[in-house]
């Protein structure tokens, strides 16, 4: 049966390389988004839990605005809508190549406007979701913990830093990993604004080779690998936590 396998039906290495480059862009965009959305998510969660309505209300408005509109529309807005407001010449600068040599070794180049718009869009959208998971984690820490911290003379910031956050992160991590998987999958929508990520390159390969099954199949495989990596982080963390808890009881 295997002798009938027609190798001419496989994708040429050139096309696999295209998709590999696309995959790298997907990973870069996802990683950047995970870091930025988590950082911003902490601030947003803190603002939403604040006693001050001047912080709490705008934060709540932000969350509902970004969670209740489709990501695709948000991406089209950042890429096609916003540049219309820029002064003349801004887009020329954004699209030109700029690079900085660091210590004469690493060259940092300015990303394309496609990448910038995609990053802004996906980060702002994901921040709304990530902050809600963090907030849920914080609410999962019993109020008595904060009161106890205050009772031993810790400041409010110290209470958050030493008592609430470490426990909140433990509670929030499994749903957060789920959000990180969503971020990775959501980056595929950025192909609509011309970012050459994995979905974009798989479509490009399909259009050129007419090998529809192979092109989208390979893309699916790469997405599965990336998602499996995030899942394994979750498993590893769970194992470490169980081992730690086990030790604690002895």
């Amino acid at each position: 049966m295997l002798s009938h396998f027609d190798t001419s039906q496989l994708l040429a290495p050139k096309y696999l390389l295209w998709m590999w480059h696309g995959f790298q862009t997907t990973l870069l965009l996802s990683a950047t988004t995970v870091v930025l959305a988590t950082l911003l998510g902490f601030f947003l969660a803190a603002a939403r839990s604040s006693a001050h309505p001047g912080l709490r209300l705008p934060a709540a408005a932000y969350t509902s605005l970004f969670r209740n509109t489709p990501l695709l529309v948000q991406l089209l807005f950042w890429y096609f809508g916003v540049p219309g407001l820029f002064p003349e010449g801004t887009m020329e600068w954004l699209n030109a190549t700029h690079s900085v040599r660091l210590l004469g070794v690493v060259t940092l180049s300015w990303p394309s406007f496609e990448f910038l718009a995609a990053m802004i869009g996906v980060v702002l959208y994901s921040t709304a979701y990530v902050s809600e998971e963090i907030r849920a984690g914080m609410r999962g820490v019993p109020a008595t913990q904060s009161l106890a911290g205050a009772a031993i003379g810790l400041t409010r910031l110290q209470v958050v830093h030493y008592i609430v956050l470490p426990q909140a992160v433990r509670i929030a991590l499994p749903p957060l990993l789920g959000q990180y998987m969503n971020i990775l999958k959501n980056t595929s929508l950025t192909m609509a604004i011309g970012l050459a990520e994995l979905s974009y390159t798989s479509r490009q390969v399909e259009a050129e080779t007419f090998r529809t099954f192979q092109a989208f199949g390979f893309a699916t495989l790469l997405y599965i690998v990336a998602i499996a990596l995030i899942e394994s982080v979750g498993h590893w963390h769970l194992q470490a936590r169980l081992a730690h808890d086990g030790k604690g009881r002895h």
Partner: protein
Amino acid sequence: MKLRASLSPLFFASALASTLALALLPVAAHADKLDDIKKAGVLRVAAFDGNPPFGYVDASSKKIVGLDIDYANELGKKLGVKVEIVPTNPANRIPLLSSNKVDLVFANFTITEDRAKVIDFSIPYFASGQQFLAKKGVLKNADGIKDIRVGTDKGTTMETTLREKYPDTKVVLYDDTPLGLAALRNGNIQAFSQDGSKLTAILAALPDKEKYEIPAFAISEEYEGVGVPKGETRLVAFLNDWLRDLEKTGTAQQIYDKWFGPQSKSPLPRLFKIGDTRLRDK
């Protein structure tokens, strides 16, 4: 048993084909379309009725007009016969010819090797190619392509041509033409690439069209000719002489200017003259 089952359709097909060939051969040998048309006093022409500016129904006169129709009417004048327009879509052009429903096809008919196996073509009287729409002054000639960001539609031959001819150009692909245009107007890309005649229609529809232009060069070539039934060599020779004559007398230029000239709704520089073998790079 198995052998017979698989052979018999083939046998029937070849028998049918040879019968058809025998039936058609004497006709083909004696046919002379040119004389037939003159004798009938009517020239039946297949043309588009929904593809401006090549052939479309005029909103006020309700008649089919366009560049292809003008050519057909010129031919009618030359032959001294009445012209009867038969509306067609792209897929019906060859069937209409081969079933003798029409004498000729004037319908933005691109000459390809595959088509030339079934029908004959005159020399081209129109040519189009992949061109660019850009802000005025940004792109002057083909050398400039490598320095700019070019947008085009996903999944088209435009992308492949750009990548093969200009591997260093940054090409950004969009889901459809309106999105590509939005990108051009916002400055995300410096030029949008598509078929030249399609770009003129796009340019004509832009609200700020005075800011944009279609630079006078093309990076790929497509030629359109008159579709003629297979084997009508005398008719093809007649058409070729007539077309060259139209160019000499300036009629071809007049027809072009009417639809694509500077005063027309969709101005497009004329890169091709009848008798040329290539599009000019001005």
